[in-house]
C-alpha cells in the first residue's frame, strides 16, 4: 500500500466518522482544530484498525497524534511493522 493510498483511506475514514468535509482535510490539519468528538474518535480508530488490520496502541508514548500527518505516519509504521513480522 502506497503512502498516498494510506493517506486517502485515512482521510475517508475521518471525513465519514466525524462528518467533516473531505475537501478541507490536509496533512497539516490539527486534530484539536477538527473538534472531533470522543465517540467519533473511537470510531475513527476502529475504522483505521479495521481498514489496515492493525492495532493502534493505546499507551504508546511514541504514538503522538497532533496532526493528520502524525496519523498517516503512525499508520505507515504500523503497516510496515505488520509486513515485517508477516
Amino acid at each position, binding site marked *: 500500500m502506497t503512502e498516498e493510498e494510506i493517506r486517502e483511506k485515512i482521510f475517508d475514514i475521518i471525513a465519514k466518522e466525524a462528518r467533516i468535509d473531505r475537501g478541507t482535510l490536509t496533512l497539516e490539519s490539527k486534530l484539536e482544530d477538527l473538534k472531533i468528538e470522543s*465517540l467519533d474518535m473511537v470510531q475513527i*480508530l476502529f475504522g483505521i484498525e*479495521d481498514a489496515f488490520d492493525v492495532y493502534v496502541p493505546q499507551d504508546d508514548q511514541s504514538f503522538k497524534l497532533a496532526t493528520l500527518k502524525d496519523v498517516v505516519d503512525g499508520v505507515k509504521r504500523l503497516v510496515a511493522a505488520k509486513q515485517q513480522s508477516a
Partner: protein
Amino acid sequence: MADHIRVAVTGIGSISSLGHNVGEIWAALEAGRTGIAPLTQVPLEQINIKIGAEVKNYDETKRFDDRELLVYDRYTQFALLAAREAMADAGIDFKKDEALGLETAVIVASGVGGWSTIDQAFYSLHKLGKPRAHPLTIPRMMISAAASQISMKFGLKGPAFCVSSACSSSNHALGEAYWMIRTGRARAALAGGSEAEISLTSQRSWESLRVMASDTCRPFSKDRKGMVIGEGAGILVLERLDDARKRGAKIYCEIAGYGLSADAGDIVMPDADGAARAMRQALQTSGLAPGDIDYINAHGTGTQLNDATEVKAIKAVFGEAAKRLMVTSTKSMHGHALGAASALEAVATAKAIEQSVVPPTANYVAPDPDCDLDHVPNTARRAKIRAAFSNSLAFGGLNAVLAFKAV
C-alpha cells in the same frame, strides 16, 4: 385529603407487538386482538417455540438517523419512541422549562438492556474470530443506556437511572418515580421500561426453562401452556396532581399506591404469600379498601403455576370483594415483554380507566377451576373503573404492585 403529594399520569407512550403508538395499541387491546405471531427475528428452523409478540413493520432507519442508530440498541430505540410520544401527549416542553427539567426524574427499566448488541459482539468475537469489538458496544448494551439517552434527548436533569428486577422491572421503575414525586424528591418523572431481547440465544434459553407456550398465550384459561415472549416499551409522564391541574393538563389517572415484597423463596416458582403482601401494601399506601378496586391488570403470564398462584393471592387479599373484581391479563395480546411488561400494562391500565373499558383476557378457551375469578374472557367490557391494580410478580420472587385511581 391525602397527607402527601398526589401524583398524576399526564402522558403515555408505547410501542409493542400491537402497534407503534398508544392509539394503535389501545385499539387492539379493546378489540381483544393478539400481537402474537410467528417470529421474524430468529430463523424458525433453529428454534422449537416459533412464536412471539414482536414489534411489527418496524424500520429503524425511518425513525432515527445513521448517527443515532450507531449508539441506539433496539431497546433504546423503543424507549425513545415511547418517551417522545408520552412527552408530546403530556404537552410539557422541558427544554423551555429548565427549572422543571432539573427536577424531573428519568427511571427506565429493562430486564437485560441491549441484548442484541451483546449477542452480536459475542458472535463476532467468539464465533467469527474477529480481532476487535465495535467501539460502541458498551454504550449500546449497558442496561442504563435508555435512561441516559432519554435524559439527554429531552434535557431532563433530575435523578436518572435504570432499575432491573426481571419481569417486575417497569413496575419498580414506575413505583420509584411515583414515590420520588410523592415524597418531594422529584417534581415530575418519565418512567417505564423497554425490552428487546428476541434473538436466537434468548429464545433458546427461554425454551430450556420449559415455561413457553407453543400455541399462544391464554392466561387463566384451561389448557394454558405458558408464556409468549414479547418486546416493546412503555413510558409514562408523572407529575404532581396540583401541577397538572394548574396547567390544565389532561389527566389519565392518579398513581395512588405502591406495594413491594420479595418471596425469598424460589428463583422461578411464585409464592402466593409474597404476592399478597405486595398487594396489601399497595392498598395500605393508597388508602384504598379492597372494595374500592374494580380491575386488576394481572401479572398473568399464562403458565399453569403463575396464574393459579396469583388468583390464590388475590383471594387472600380481597376476600369476598374478589368476586366482583375484573382480573385480566393483557399479556394474552402484547405477550410478555419481560422488563417492559409492567410498563405496557400501566399504559393499558391508564387507558382502561380513561376509557371506562376493561381490556379482556384474549385466547381464553374455557374456565380453569384454579382460576375462578372474573377474567373477562376474549371480549372487552365497558365498566367504570374507580381504582385498579397492576400486578408484577417476577422470577426470583420480586413483586411490585401499583395502585391507579380515577381522578
